[in-house]
């Protein structure tokens, strides 16, 4: 019967101009093209400017390699910390309703809004000897100022919201009823998490890890306050720019762009598919 009605649909009259672009679509396309150009042009320009010789020289510079390695190491550590502490937190936010939940969610988002140098300053003032927390750290022999620990601390701070929000969304997409059924079949909460929730949400966790790490790799403002040395890539780019100028900072920047590009390709590859399952 349906087929019949489909057949009866009126066809456009012959000769009507089908190539005319809808003005709404036209504006949307124009806006998209402007944004693409705005993002891509400066990046492409930067990548193609340095000569091959410059690039080779810079990338064989052990300082540069060390800085990029340090960036990856510290931001990877931050992502790992976000994973360990953020996963149960995200699960709680996705599953439980409690008074003040909106407030807690806003606190999670705070690091996105705070100006980055402020993050570094706040952390330093906590870690100083005049603060009780700083004295505890001191007794535990933990140094923040100018250490890898300090860098990982600020990177975790700025990266956490990205991990928690991505994973929370992933957990929310798993119907609570699946967990109820699993429990009714005899599975404990742990077993249910590892057999049902995790297999259905792991993609979101991966996306969260990459987002968190990508955010951390690109951090400059907070890191430079806490630790100029050991040097991460953004700080090195800044240093070379101020000390030697554009020409010397560009090759390092290209290296960092390549690293970020790989991270984001991973992100795109791992993003949830349409059916929402792994």
């Amino acid at each position: 019967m349906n087929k019949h009605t489909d057949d009866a649909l009126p066809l456009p009259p012959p000769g009507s101009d089908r190539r005319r672009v809808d003005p709404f679509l036209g504006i949307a396309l124009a806006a998209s093209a402007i944004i693409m150009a705005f993002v891509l042009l400066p990046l492409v320009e930067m990548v193609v400017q340095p000569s091959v010789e410059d690039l080779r020289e810079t990338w064989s510079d052990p300082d540069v390699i060390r800085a990029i390695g340090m960036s990856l190491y510290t931001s990877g550590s931050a992502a790992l910390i976000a994973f360990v502490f953020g996963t149960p937190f995200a699960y709680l936010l996705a599953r439980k309703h409690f008074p003040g939940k909106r407030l807690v969610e806003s606190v999670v988002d705070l690091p996105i809004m705070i100006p980055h140098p402020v993050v570094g300053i706040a952390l330093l003032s906590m870690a100083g000897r005049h603060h009780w927390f700083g004295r505890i750290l001191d007794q535990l022999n933990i140094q923040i100022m100018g250490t890898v620990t300090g860098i990982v601390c600020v990177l975790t701070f700025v990266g956490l919201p990205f991990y928690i929000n991505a994973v929370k969304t992933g957990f929310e997409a798993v119907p609570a009823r699946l967990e109820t059924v699993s429990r009714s079949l005899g599975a404990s909460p742990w077993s249910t998490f590892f057999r049902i929730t995790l297999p259905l949400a792991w993609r979101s966790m991966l996306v969260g890890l990459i987002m968190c790490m990508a955010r951390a790799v690109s951090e400059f403002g907070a890191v430079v306050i806490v630790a100029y040395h050991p040097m991460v890539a953004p700080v090195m780019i800044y240093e070379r720019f101020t000390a030697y100028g554009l020409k010397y900072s560009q090759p390092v920047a290209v290296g960092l762009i390549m690293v970020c590009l790989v991270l984001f390709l991973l992100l795109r590859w791992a993003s949830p598919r349409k059916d929402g399952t792994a």
Partner: protein
Amino acid sequence: MIRVEDLAIVLPGFALEDIDLQVNPGEAFALLGPTGAGKTLLLEAIIGVVPVTRGRILIDGRDMTGLPPERRRIGILYQDHALFPHLSVAENIAYGQRYCTSALPNLEPLIERLGLQRLLSRRIHSLSGGEKQRVALARSLAVAPSVLLLDEPLTALDPNFREDIRGLLKTLHQDTGITLLMVTHDFAEAHFMAQRTAVMNRGRIEQVGPVDAIFERPETPFVADFVGMKNFFPAVIAGNDAVIGNIRLRCKARGGDFHAVAVRPENVRIRKDPFDAGTANQLAGKLRRMLNRGFYADVWVDVDGLSFRAIDSRRRLSRSGVAEGETVYLAIAPEDIHLMREGKADAESARTSGKARIRE
């Protein structure tokens, strides 16, 4: 056996109160009520995922109130089947078996019985609605639960699958003798599946009893409306007469103190011309509105300030020539006038409280 004693669950904005219920061993019991009555909440409290504020839940005599769901041995079948999408049909069915401490039921006869042999290696998203529901049923039965809860198991199915699953559930219950507690908003479904039923409204149980008894003798205005007695009037009952405003209706006296009457629309006869002189309870009124329902039509007739609702086939109505705005005659047999104790209650709330209605 399921026993719920003086149960209360208080949530922000909603509360279940004074829930007392017993489902006997091997019985099929239906929880009936409109959307938002609290049926599913009660079911989830019995499974153990909703904490109770007060009261006890016993399964086969054991107090389960504080136990986690995994230690209650209660099966659940949801209307959206809640199958695990990342597992195959076979993996779904066998999911709970590794946690089973008691003797495992043999899966093969179960799979065969539910017609799932050829689906075992399939992924969940490739199944039809009816197949999904059969897999979900197999999954819950595979761990030999002591009771099975059904949360509107037929609602989400196409009509042809619905017949299929309904018949399957019925024979399964008859053959295995498992205790069933089903939630539904469809009286016809309860009538087909269950021996006894409880009608719920706004977090309370309004009436419990055999399905037929509730259908024929509702005790509250809400239940009367729910089982299709759409004509509800507070009345003064004197002997064999019910006086509603200026109208006097002859009815069949029963022992007891009654303050209201209720009549099914299908028991209100309607004609353009007066009935024979000897016809009991003949009323003349004005046909206010006629609503087309396919084969049937709903008709509202104003009689002396009261609105009566009648149902008849459209063919009969058009043949008798009744039309909106014109005078028509109604007749109600005395035995079709149901006497009720409650006179003042919230008939209005019953009328507006949901989509849940008997299938006419």
